[in-house]
């Protein structure tokens, strides 16, 4: 186990951002915290990285309490924040140099790792380019390799593709997959369902500071069903879930005969997410 979070609570004046969440991230896995804006994803990341203090709760990194071993813990973590917090006036290389020095790396190692990671990110040609001259996708990749420079044991990605075009998002996804393939444990927060479904080994649904469900996307989907039909009517859209395609097709036929506009498709993680959200709203 790489990361263990126990009963984490964070109260800001007038709002409880986290209501005692607990989860574990296993070594080498990509664990996604999936939830709408304001669910508590970024607060969780900020607490793990020491940017925010929790109100209550414990966090263990490789069985060590991170609040008791703060400097040690920071060395084990690579953070890719939601916003691009690079120095826009400085070059890619200069940004990486500063990060390396902040993590007390020897200059020769900073140079070596810079070359390696720039190549991995396909940015070798951009070493001397000012960050402000890079595209959004390139800046995001620089942010990721900066977090990897000090060889962290766990990488925290806070909404790494937010605001990016779909084709750039796909490039970032394959880059994240490459990083995971090299053995890095990853904790990802996102509100993009397809991102979590494509990347994550396990997903936790987080709503209003509470974790509702943790499992692999495959298990979550199969729990709900494999096929879905969407029925469009004057009351709006209604979705029904089925274990087999045959069941779904029978229902589809039934509704078609009643002159409904109906479509058949596979169940996605988004369906599972909406199902739990509905459950929560009913509560």
């Amino acid at each position: 186990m790489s990361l263990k979070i126990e009963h984490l609570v964070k109260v800001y004046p007038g709002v409880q951002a986290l209501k005692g969440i607990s989860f574990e991230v296993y070594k080498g896995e990509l664990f996604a915290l999936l939830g709408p804006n304001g669910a508590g994803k970024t607060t969780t990341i900020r607490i793990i990285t020491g940017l925010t203090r929790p109100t209550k709760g414990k966090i263990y990194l490789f069985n060590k309490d991170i609040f008791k071993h703060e400097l040690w813990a920071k060395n084990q973590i690579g953070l890719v924040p939601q916003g691009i917090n690079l120095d826009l006036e400085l070059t890619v290389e200069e940004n990486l140099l500063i990060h390396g020095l902040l993590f007390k790396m020897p200059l020769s190692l900073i140079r070596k790792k810079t070359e390696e990671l720039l190549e991995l990110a396909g940015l070798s040609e951009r070493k001397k380019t000012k960050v402000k001259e890079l595209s959004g996708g390139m800046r995001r990749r620089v942010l990721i390799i900066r977090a990897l420079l000090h060889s962290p044991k766990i990488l925290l990605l806070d909404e790494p593709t937010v605001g990016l075009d779909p084709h750039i998002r796909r490039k970032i996804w394959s880059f994240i997959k490459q990083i995971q393939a090299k053995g890095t444990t990853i904790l990802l927060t996102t509100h993009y369902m397809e991102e979590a479904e494509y990347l994550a080994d396990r997903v936790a649904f987080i709503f209003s500071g509470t974790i509702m469900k943790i499992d692999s996307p495959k298990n979550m989907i199969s729990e709900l069903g494999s096929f879905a039909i969407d029925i469009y009517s004057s009351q709006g859209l209604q979705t029904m879930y089925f274990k087999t395609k045959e069941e779904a097709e029978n229902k589809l036929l039934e509704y078609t005969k009643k002159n409904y506009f109906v479509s058949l498709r596979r169940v996605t993680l988004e369906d599972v997410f909406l199902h739990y959200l509905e459950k929560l709203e009913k509560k």
Partner: protein
Amino acid sequence: MKGFLAVYLREILLLKKRIFRLILSLSVNPFLYIVAFGIGLGKHLKVNGVPYLQFLIPGLISATSMMQAFAINVEINVSRFYLKIFEEFQSAPLSTVSYVLGEVFSGITRAFLSTFIILGIAYASGVKIYLNFVFFLTIFLNAFVFACLGLASAMIIKSHADQTLVTNFIITPMMFLGGTFFPTKNLPAIIKPIIESLPLTLASHTLRSIALYKTFKPINLIILAFSSIPCFIIALYTVKKARD
């Protein structure tokens, strides 16, 4: 040490990218003060037995180095609230002392840059003043104090508008009253002790004594050095508090 170096190097790299613009902007104010107060108003004026322009230069150095050291608050504010660079520092295994020293030394570097520009303009205007190690040590201590206060203000204040308020209500009055343009002995007795105990006044008096009379009161320098300790502690405290 590497943490301090990272913070300082970042500031120096940014300063290097803007060096020509910065030198030009740092030259404007002292040039105008020298022309307006030194050459325009004070060409035939003598203060404390010396030509006013010669009297003005050391005061101008202490005031400008104070302003430049304090001005790191603007850069830090931009880094913190707009670029979010402060979060990169906070998530790194960087001690508060290293961060504070890195930022404070960048303020000191800016202060020395402005000092050399004023000295250049002064020499070009035909004003020659005496310089020694204590002269530069005084600038260092003055800049240290105000860089610490600049950093602390950047941590406490959360908007650019409020930063301007601090500059307008504290730094600008101090610049005008702290022995920059006229001797503090002429001030009303009720405020004189307060003004004379301000770090800027102590720095102005010491720089002026060295520059014009090749001497100084060690007590002024000792008070200035001791006042840097609480300022450093305030900077450390505000940086620690800024986490949440």
